[in-house]
């Protein structure tokens, strides 16, 4: 666990970064980009340990182009009372159609029909509609349900079908649009789910459709494009926000969401600079034209990979961003701050600040607890069951005032048994 409340670890064969808990999509973008900076710094440090001439390359992507995929998992708290079947019916068309705006783009394919370029890095690796797996027979709708919060109130929605985005606008829409849709599901504010005739086939079809015009078949016989489906969600969410009021980030998400749908309808090429697949495709087409290369030439695949390099001086996306060729939503200053500081309005604040203030006393830190060695007989476990507690507003002063870990525990009430009682 890091001082910004995130988790950085090795998952099987690659390093993985899990952002701290955020309350809104824009914060998530900031802490997601902070993760890129942390990875780049880790790579630089690792490089210093290597013999001269060796380099560490870290790519924020989802496939090696040789049959292996690795996920960018999104996690959302959803009200437990929403029936899982209903949630699934509402989300399958969302997952399939959002690829038009949130795909990171890739060269080649790992499933039929063969493709030279795809919108999604992940579409070829999904074989089920619903299931628990994440590495084999991957399902569009994953059922893993450890909420790391009160399970009577919350379900965890574990989304494994999305891509790692470099475009900040794409991350904003990937997370922000889904947050709005989930709120709409909770409020019963969506129309009847649009049932796709074959969600898995549709996922691959959208991924292969750079025109964004391919019609998808619905169970009721209608045909809609991915953008038509996105529009139906966006309209329902805009109505919900107009009716119930905007929460932080809603206006930004809705404006970009509708704008991207418009741009994609007009000409998908106009999504370059805000959507990763369109940005990458434009680069690749220009690169191929200059060098006279075929669509899946190794040098074209190299451009694909290099787009995702997290080093700001080597990664193509980062070079584009530095030149003002892609839209940024964050500032370098706030990202640098997010590398070390947690979001202020979730329990990540308590976790991250504990680690920053009392690093030698923190024996263990997880999503839902911090364990401190205060020098006493027993270790002290501070539960963080409620994600909206432990915020700067609630415990900031207390943390600042505590002289050491023992003093902190005393100020928290002195009892090791504080289940859910923190501030």
């Amino acid at each position, binding site marked *: 666990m890091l001082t910004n409340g995130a988790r950085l670890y090795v998952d099987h*064969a690659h390093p993985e970064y899990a952002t701290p808990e955020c309350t809104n999509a824009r914060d998530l973008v900031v802490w997601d980009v902070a993760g890129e900076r942390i990875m780049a710094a880790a790579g630089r440090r690792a490089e210093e340990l290597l013999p001269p001439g060796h380099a560490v390359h870290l790519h924020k992507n989802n496939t090696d182009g040789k049959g292996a995929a690795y996920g960018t998992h999104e996690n959302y708290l959803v009200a437990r009372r929403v029936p899982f079947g209903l949630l699934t019916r509402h989300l399958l068309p969302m997952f399939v159609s959002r690829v038009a705006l949130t795909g990171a783009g890739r060269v080649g394919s790992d499933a039929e029909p063969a493709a030279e370029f795809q919108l999604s890095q992940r579409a070829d690796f999904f074989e089920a509609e619903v299931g628990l797996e994440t590495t084999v027979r991957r399902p569009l709708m994953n059922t893993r349900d450890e909420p790391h919060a009160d399970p009577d109130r919350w379900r965890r929605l574990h989304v*494994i079908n999305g891509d790692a985005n470099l475009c900040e606008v794409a991350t904003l829409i990937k997370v922000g649009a889904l947050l709005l849709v989930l709120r709409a599901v909770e409020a019963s504010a969506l129309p009847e789910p649009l049932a796709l005739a074959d969600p898995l086939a549709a996922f691959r079809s959208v991924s292969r459709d750079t025109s964004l015009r391919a019609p998808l078949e619905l169970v009721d016989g209608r045909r809609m494009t991915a953008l038509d489906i996105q529009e139906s969600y966006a309209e329902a969410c805009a109505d919900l926000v107009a009716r119930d009021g905007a929460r932080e980030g809603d206006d*930004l998400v809705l404006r970009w969401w509708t704008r991207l749908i418009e741009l994609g309808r007009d000409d998908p090429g106009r999504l370059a600079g805000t959507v990763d697949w369109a940005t990458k495709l434009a680069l690749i087409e220009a690169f191929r034209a200059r060098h006279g290369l075929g669509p899946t030439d190794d040098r074209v695949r190299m451009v694909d990979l*290099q787009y995702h390099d997290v080093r700001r001086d080597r990664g193509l996306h980062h070079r584009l961003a530095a030149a003002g060729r892609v839209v940024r939503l964050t500032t370098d200053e706030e990202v640098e701050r997010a590398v070390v500081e947690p979001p202020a*309005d979730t329990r990540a604040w308590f976790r991250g600040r504990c680690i920053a203030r009392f690093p030698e006393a923190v024996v263990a830190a997880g999503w839902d607890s911090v364990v401190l060695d205060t020098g006493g007989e027993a270790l002290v476990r501070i539960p963080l069951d409620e994600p909206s507690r432990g915020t700067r507003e609630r415990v900031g002063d207390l943390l600042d005032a505590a002289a050491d870990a023992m003093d902190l525990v005393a100020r928290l009430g002195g009892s090791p048994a504080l289940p859910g009682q923190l501030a």
Partner: protein
Amino acid sequence: MSGSGRIGGEGTSERGRAEEEPLVAGRPPRDLLDGVDDLLDEIDEVLEENAEEFVRGYVQKGGQ
């Protein structure tokens, strides 16, 4: 913290002004392929000299 305040409102900086424009136009400050020759020179410079070898050696083992 209010969303719109943080996003558009810190607008005294250059960044703040730059953010207003793309929200209206849905575009970055500079077109992606503006001055494409310079951009492609940059890509050539950044790519590994032996792209073929790099791409072939790029294999993921394990993971989700």
